[in-house]
């Protein structure tokens, strides 16, 4: 990638979810990080989107496999 002038708000917001997912190229990660460090409103927004992802992670699937299922699976393996 050629040297850039740095990302503005639009370029940052366009990449915000991919940044939260750690899925940008190394150069883009650095550029977004640099913008967030300099721009409190974008940083606030980034923290919010990260919080949404954490919400889905923590509250989306709180269930654990029931014990009888684990026992059944292990029993099947021995047959």
């Amino acid at each position: 990638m050629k040297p850039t002038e740095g990302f503005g708000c639009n370029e940052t917001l366009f990449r915000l979810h991919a940044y939260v997912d750690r899925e940008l190229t190394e150069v883009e990660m650095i550029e977004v990080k640099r913008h967030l460090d300099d721009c409190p409103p974008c940083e606030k927004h980034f923290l919010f989107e990260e919080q949404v992802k954490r919400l889905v992670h923590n509250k989306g699937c709180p269930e654990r496999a029931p014990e009888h299922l684990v026992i059944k699976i292990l029993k099947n393996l021995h047959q």
Partner: protein
Amino acid sequence: MEALRDLDRGPRFDRADPLEELGMLRVAPGDMKGLALPPMTPEAASDAPPEFDFEAAVQENVDALYRGALRMTGKPQEAEDLVQETFLRAYRFRHQFQPGTNFKAWLFKIQTNLYRSRYRKQWNAPQSLDDTEEFYLYQHLGPDNANPSGEDPAAEALDRLGVEEVRKAIEDLPPAYRAAVLLTDVEGFSYKETAEILEVPVGTVMSRLHRGRQRLQQKLYEYAKESGVIT
């Protein structure tokens, strides 16, 4: 390899600075220590290799497969059947697992294939989501630009959302979008791993995630309003 094993525990947002992980992101997925099968010949496939503890692999992955199956089927009994069959197949075809790759991803691939064949109608039903408003929640809950130094009201509202609202919002997504969101956001798989599990190009994963999350945010907002956790 520490970060790669963290995949198993969920999204990689628990570090303060995403850049710290950059080095790890370029590493090929996999290398789940303790889960890799030793190289073996097809003739030896019927004997479980002594180094590979399948029971431990069941214990380690059963919760993830079950919660995924539960969100996909919506019914505990069907979820149990799906998970049981997934492990049966995994055990039967364990010699096909590529050592050094991600065992959890392999299990999810088996389970997703099973889901698709059992729930063909739901999976194949017309289910494209339109582009809706970008950053729906943030636009509707905040930001409080008048008070930039104070607590973020959007963040506080989000904290009040409960398990019930989140669960319903996820289950409202069409299956193909739901699967993409569950695999990346709940299980912490990378786009590439999710693409391999769903057997679609990475670009398809990205667009399903994009639209799926837009819809999810919209639904979260609606359910939060309905239940009164936000006003």
